[in-house]
């Protein structure tokens, strides 16, 4: 596989609108009330131009449309964003141009691909209609499978996204759903355990006692089942929740997040990270959250650029970097930030067989993957 060079640069486009808000979602999303999306598109384009001044001339290795529901974007708007990206930075010949597609918009996928998108992740989420209804989705299982089929007919790189460890879901239920999706021969699968996030409708239901998340034991068993079934189907668990058939199908854009590459975040609430301590400081930026504020600010000079300290940068790199099977590049961490992982914690975790490491690299051992957050927290340097 190709290790992205430090020069790799990604562009994230956040489309915050959804036809309806899912009760589990804590992303920065807003219900589209037939609002005119033109001002937001103009703001996105203006924002990109401002960022071009920050990055200087570098080619983009990926563009990713996330949200919200970016499949609600007009194809011509997607095309304008991609054209503007091409004009401002230029796209690498094999650049990954991805978009998160909601099955309800499956009829629009052909247009979206015509606009230039070459990778689609389809939010199938579940094959159980009742479960989809409980998740607040605006499509049924049939629509999800249709969307997946359409996507695969349009582009070579497709991911099926599933949500599991849902309340009321048994290990057997999940096994059935997962096996059915794998049987389709998908090349990429994102299988996310349902997380109850603060401030969501589900969190309120948990508080009221009307929603009981599955016990930790069951969720852990489901995770292990997922690893087993996807592995057997030829998909490698290259990240905690992501599985791909060979390197070519791995998400290159997400890789930037996990390996601490550079990316620009465009759109309401989008985050960006550029450069590193060794290159004069890693720049962090978060765009205004509300679309109206974002649109208003896009006409102004870019502000709110923050320079992370070397320690903060190192902590982020450790927290994100352990999630991938390749693990964290310690040599690069040291040379970019001057920090390393916590040596005492590393030794103890190594002795317990939870991580594998040498001077150049540290990665989660099989048993460590279920404790990824805790291990990352332990390894993150502290002052």
């Amino acid at each position, binding site marked *: 596989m190709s290790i992205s060079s430090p020069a790799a640069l990604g562009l*994230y486009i956040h489309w915050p609108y959804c036809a309806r808000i899912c009760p589990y979602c804590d992303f920065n999303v807003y219900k589209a009330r037939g609002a005119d999306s033109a001002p937001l598109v103009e703001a996105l384009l203006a924002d990109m131009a401002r960022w071009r001044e920050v990055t200087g001339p570098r080619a983009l290795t990926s563009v990713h449309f*996330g949200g919200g529901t970016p499949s609600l974007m007009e194809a011509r708007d997607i095309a304008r964003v991609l054209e503007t990206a091409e004009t401002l930075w230029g796209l690498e010949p094999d650049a990954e141009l991805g978009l998160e597609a909601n099955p309800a918009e499956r009829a629009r996928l052909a247009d979206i691909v015509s606009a230039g998108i070459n990778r689609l992740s389809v939010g199938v989420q579940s094959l159980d209609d009742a479960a989809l209804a409980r998740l607040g989705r605006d499509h049924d299982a049939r629509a999800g499978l249709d969307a997946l089929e359409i996507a695969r007919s349009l582009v070579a790189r497709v991911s099926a996204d599933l949500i599991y460890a849902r309340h009321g879901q048994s290990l057997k239920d999940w096994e059935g759903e997962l096996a059915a999706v794998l049987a389709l021969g998908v090349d990429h699968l994102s299988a*996310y*355990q*349902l*997380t109850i996030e603060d401030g969501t409708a589900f969190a309120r239901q948990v508080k009221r006692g009307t929603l009981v998340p599955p016990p*930790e*034991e069951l*969720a*852990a068993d489901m*995770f292990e089942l997922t690893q087993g079934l996807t592995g057997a189907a030829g998909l490698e668990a290259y990240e*905690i*929740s992501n599985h791909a058939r060979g390197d070519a199908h791995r998400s290159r854009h*997400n890789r*930037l*997040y*996990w390996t601490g590459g550079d*990316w620009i*975040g465009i759109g309401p*609430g*989008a*985050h*960006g*990270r550029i450069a590193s301590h060794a290159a004069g400081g890693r720049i*962090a930026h*978060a765009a205004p959250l509300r679309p109206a504020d974002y649109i208003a600010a896009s006409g102004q000079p870019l502000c709110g650029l923050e320079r992370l300290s070397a320690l*903060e940068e190192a*902590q*982020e790199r450790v*927290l*994100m970097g352990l*999630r991938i099977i390749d693990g964290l590049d310690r040599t690069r961490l040291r040379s970019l930030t001057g920090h390393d992982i916590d040596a005492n914690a590393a030794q*103890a975790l190594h002795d*317990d067989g*939870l991580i594998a490491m040498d001077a150049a690299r540290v990665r989660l051992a099989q048993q460590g*993957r*279920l*404790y*990824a*957050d*805790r291990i*990352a*927290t332990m390894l*993150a340097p*502290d002052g």
Partner: protein
Amino acid sequence: MSTNPANIRNFSIVAHIDHGKSTLADRLIQVTGGLTEREMKEQVLDNMELERERGITIKAQTVRLDYTARNGEKYVLNLIDTPGHVDFAYEVSRSLSACEGALLVVDAAQGVEAQTLANVYAAIEVDLEIVPVLNKIDLPAAEPDRVRAQIEDVIGIEAHDALEISAKTGLGIEDVLEAIVHRLPAPPAGDPDAPLKALLVDSWYDAYLGVICLVRIHEGTLKKGMRVRLMGTGANYNVDGVGVFRPTKINVDSLGPGEIGFLNASIKQVRDARVGDTITEEKRPTSSMLPGFKPAIPVVFCGLFPVDANDFEDLRDAVERLALNDASFSFEMETSAALGFGFRCGFLGLLHLEVIRERLEREYDVDLITTAPSVIYKIKMTDGEVIDLHNPADMPDPVRIDTIAEPWIKATILVPDEYLGGVLKLCEDRRGIQKELTYAGSRAMLVYELPLNEVVFDFYDRLKSVTKGYASFDYQFIEHREGDLVKMSILVNEEPVDALSMIVHRARAEMRGRGMCEKLKDLIPRHMFKIPIQAAIGGRVIARETLSALRKDVTAKCYGGDASRKRKLLDKQKAGKKKMRQFGRVEIPQEAFIAALKMDGD
């Protein structure tokens, strides 16, 4: 100009909590014009915030009332308020010894309670004349005749002429004042020109005046500017001020025989103004000292540690300042592997402990961890030496111990008979020995001998829960008795946790150990490996729980924006880690210690 002793009445009010002592005191002050309506605060005598909140009196307060009786004579009535709780029995008895009489206030609906008994016996012991007063007579549930009979049966004093009043509505307050004048004796007529002989009844610290001494004059006259000697300590002071409480401090020129008032003399520490000491004039001393009081001895001990180790100096400052004002509170520095630097403190009882702890937290703003309360064990070593032990951490090697003795108390419990079974079981479980079981109406009076260490461990809470709060409880120390006592250690993942070790009776060790292990199992967060939690005596494990391993700790989804969020979470966790204590590979949060050591069982 001093008052003629024949027109002075010094009295206390003894009552159970909630029977209306403070309300009655307020009424007496109001009716005699001690305070205007505007100045009148609820329960003015309990002027510490904490006291008012808990409805208890800790430090004795006093107030001087002017009363013109129905016979036209003017009287000075000194009301000395007393603490109601058993922990402060010592302060009760010395307040009472400054009086000639007492009002026994009993709730006309609830009847006699255990505290009523303890306090009224203390009053009888110092030969006070007692006037029974039935309060809350206006309540529909009031049964004055039944309660009268109960006072006669249970306490054994005449009650047919008990006054019927309602402190709340003001009904019968004049009768109370008349009874004070006509039924309580006047103080003995001492010679105002004799050498000064005054009893130091109480002392406390005032930020402006230094130590304030509450005094009762027996002979002679105390004047401002006089040079006095505290006969016990031999120290001499210039009297800067003499006064009385109305209830605010009012300066007077002098206090004569039979009078009660205060003096301030630039005394720096409460310890220098020993309660019970005799005050006389330096240049013309009295020939003999007053009998005074036995010193109060701490009976309950515990460690107090700051939650944040950085607050240790603040805690030191706070305990030192508290001790300035409370001679019965003792402390010494202690170090614990689990809890860091703190203090081993001695208290008169559990309520005293609670009060001190709350004052430290509230008035001095220090967050505290309180270790399990302990008592004083007398350990006889094989070489004949006897040592006092109140910290399990200091327990000598068992092979060098000949015998261990523990303090026992005599407990009096009054309980409605429907809850009697539960109380009997509780006392039996706590190694109690029944001495008496009698009935007064539908209430049982139980007298038990109990080991104090079983009482300091959640006894009140259990008693409250088995009787739905209807029992009343009081105790006094009797003696140390030999017992089969052992040190029980708690091991978490094979590592001993010193702050959790305790001295227990062998017969009770397994139960206590199991309770602690179960509690810890719920309190210690799960780790990536399973953790045995054991209670052991020496090398022998007597109880064991296993905290299962955490199965997962992983976020499903993690995108670019999450980097900042994850870093904020990390900062929070790192901050939380500072409140963790490391035992081998196990991290135990401070809250777990606090919860495990809390006295209430659950």
